[in-house]
């Protein structure tokens, strides 16, 4: 393994950690709003790290561009869908968790 492999591995592991944290949040948090919060934030960051990790190993700039495009699309979709879910929940009268 050369240096870039190690860099990539570390970045991927960090990304996986964020995914894991988001998933734990999804399972453990008390209501839909907090779950969305955990999921979207940490998954977006996690994916960012994964994309960076893969970009380090990429064969060409073209591939890096595609990876970034994927990340941006997921950001867009994730943020919008999280908003729509939260909006739907509010409209149906799902209360926020207070404790």
């Amino acid at each position, binding site marked *: 393994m050369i240096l870039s492999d190690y860099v990539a591995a570390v970045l991927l592991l960090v990304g996986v950690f964020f995914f894991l944290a988001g998933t734990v949040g999804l399972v453990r948090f008390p209501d839909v709003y907090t779950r969305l919060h955990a999921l979207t934030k940490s998954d977006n960051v996690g994916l960012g790290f994964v994309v960076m990790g893969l970009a380090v190993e990429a064969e060409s700039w073209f591939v890096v561009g595609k990876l970034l495009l994927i990340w941006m*699309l997921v950001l*867009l*979709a994730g943020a*919008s869908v999280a*908003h*729509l879910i939260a*909006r739907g929940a509010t409209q149906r009268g799902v209360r926020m968790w207070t404790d």
Partner: protein
Amino acid sequence: MDRLTLVLWIFDSVTGLGLLLLAGWALASPQLFRGIILFVAFSLMMSIAWVRIDAPDVALAEIAIGAGLTGALLLAALSRLGDSEPTQESMNRPIERSYRARTFRSLTASLLAAVAVALVFLILALPGDSEGLGAEVAASLDASGVSSPVTAVLLNFRGYDTLLELLVLLLALLGVWSLGGLPAQPVSPAVLVLDTLARILIPVLLLSSAYLLWAGTHAPGGAFQAGAVLGAAGVLLSLAGWQVRQRYTGVTLRLLLIAGPSLFLAFALYTIVAGQSLLEYPPQRAGVMIVLLEVAATLSIGTTLAALFVAEGPRNKEGQ
């Protein structure tokens, strides 16, 4: 066994186990909504399995159709089911809880477990080195007009299957319309975020569709994946509250729906009249003809899938 093989083996096992668990969970989930979401997760995991067994074309089709469109169709149907639902209790549990019903269920389960075990043994007993038709496809690939083997099979070697399959799609839409379609969903007030999302994503989807179509001649992709992405664009537009104007839902819509099958059938008719084999491509022009057929098929597939999602039935004068 080297380390990579071991890692992949573990990965495959986790994926396989995950598929079984997700499937069981989706089907047994007490709430239908949760069941559908789990089914979509199942389909996404299926596409990982497709990649692992070297079937990228299928993975693309699975993501676009299995997870995306089927999920959207299921959720739309569930939301429309709305008030006609019986109580949660009666709709979610298996048919009965009586002793007889329980015996029936355990008998069914044991019988199917036996079937599963038998299938496992049979699959393990299959010859390990069968290549199927891989060699034949490779040998005729040059004459097929395209360089992607899957596209060559779909559009050329077994193009007749594909013709019938396009007709299954059209027939399903005809069936939906002949049931009278569904009442239009009430137009919800425009949601800024959804609008923006649609405005950004629609061009991306159209571009991806075109790319998949073009790539299909030499790489994974092709008319079905491209059509599915086109259909997804239609679904997104419909969700964002777009209404197609009446003047375009009559003949224009019908022409789009039949473009793919008609072009295919016209080609078939030409080969019949010319005294050739059915759907026989002239070798020099096969490539161009396949691209033309794929373009028409993509348009029709996309329109049909979107129309299946909208499912409102034709709004022209004959249909009312």
